[in-house]
């Protein structure tokens, strides 16, 4: 039995890229800045990996790297979503 894990992951990656293209071409130019900052926050999803790295039991380099990664990713996530919300609040129509 061969291992198809990588292939399945590539499937997911390619299909998600197509979904992304479809969705983002529909975003109007007026929202391009919030799109960037919002999608930026989504890329902070690496927090998931950082949490597991920092949560290991014994002290190690890996744990410290995970800790720094949590800080970076949380800045990205919290900063990104908040600033996007701040911007989107301002977009009004008469």
């Amino acid at each position, binding site marked *: 039995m061969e291992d198809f894990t*990588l292939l399945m992951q590539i499937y*997911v*990656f390619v299909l*998600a*890229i197509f*979904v*992304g*293209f479809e*969705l*983002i071409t529909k975003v109007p*130019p*007026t929202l*391009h*800045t*919030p*799109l*960037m*900052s*919002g*999608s*930026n926050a*989504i*890329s*902070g*999803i690496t*927090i*998931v*990996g*950082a*949490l*597991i*790295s*920092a*949560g*290991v*039991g014994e002290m190690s*380099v890996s*744990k410290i*790297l*995970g800790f720094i*990664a*949590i*800080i*970076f*990713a*949380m*800045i*990205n*996530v*919290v*900063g*990104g*979503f908040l*600033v996007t*919300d701040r*911007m*989107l609040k*301002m*977009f009004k*129509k008469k």
Partner: protein
Amino acid sequence: MQIISYIVYLIASICFIFGIKKLASPKTARQGNQLAAVGMLLAIIVTLKDNRILSYEWIIAGIIIGSIIGAVFALKVKMTGMPQMVGLLNGFGGGASTLVAISEYERIFYGTKQFEINVMISIVLSVLIGSVTFTGSLIAFGKLQELITGKVIKYPFQHPLNALLIITVLVMGVILVIQPINIELLLIITSVSLVLGVLLVLPIGGADMPVAISLLNSYSGIAASMTGFVLSNNMLIIAGALVGASGIILTIIMCKGMNRSLMNVVLGGWESAGSTGSSAISSPKGQVKSIDAEELAMLLDSVSSVIIVPGYGMAVAQAQHAVRDLMNVLEKKGVRVRFAIHPVAGRMPGHMNVLLAEAQVEYDKLVAMEDINDDFPNTDLVIIIGANDVVNPAARHNQNSPIYGMPILNVDYAKTVIINKRSLNVGYAGIDNELFFYPNALMYFGDAKEAMTKLVNELKSSS
């Protein structure tokens, strides 16, 4: 237990997809952003329950520190500072991907698990892209914050050096994939990638920043996706791919807005960039005509339609509120006012829209270039505020001009064009703007904010 996290990750992925879908309209956009945030929260909570996590002290500390820094950034930043804010956030995303990949490598290195080839490929790519994103974004931030000159910086052997570094890092990556037990090599790859990020963004000039920021945005997504491959986590792969696609689309839009290839931007600067020439008054094309606030106010008394063209100069002068006042006073007089937005106006995609939204200009008054370009011939008056190259008619007809072929706003077709600028200095492309010498063009000199405030006062006192 594992099955529950997979299901929650799927729900989080759906939140991200619908969140971005809702960004298609300003009415639902805020909701969309909140939905994506909920997805993120779900993903974090379910991960905290993971049985590989044995201690929580460092996690809690990291979450608190990161959240506070992020929140302070987000609440303190001014709307004019948004491009550097997005640049900085991109960098942290890239940095996090790099750290997670190295950390995962260390875990396998000191653990009992075997290095698998697909994991190694993902680790190398994640480190490479993440590191380039990290330092590249910091440089972009420095340039936008004016800690580093925003000009095109050229250094000796720029292209051969970068090519050499890219090849080196790829070769080292292949070696590491084949012989994974070599932690020094991974650290060398990281270091070279960090240097590469600096060298790649350093030559990019200020007005090309919309492309650079979009591209770095895309990288941060792809790096996250690669981390997903490292951890065999489909949610990360999906979320990263969405961001990657978003960045690529914006990059393409920005490049089209300048009629330049991505290569041309990445390699740095217009071919003719660096040609100075600060004054165009002596140009053989003749004299420019100027107008003062009082005369301009009189002129505005007799118009029925106005299009305002904002550019980076409006952002620098923080003139968006003064511009909004101008719009209000004109609308009170019954003038139809709209804004024409060039795709690359400012320093990031949608920069002008955010500034004007901050000043409470309704978004339906901001019209994209392709939708408003045909309206200029029927427009009485155009006011250009701090824009230059994007309104230079040379782009349409002068094949020798470095900006030839770039789509521009056809402001010169309007009956009268007012150009507000501090001086006659050339724009980013380093070329004279022949529009200034056109018979229907009038220069209104002065700092954008002061000039607009003065004009508004004149208009108010005359009515």
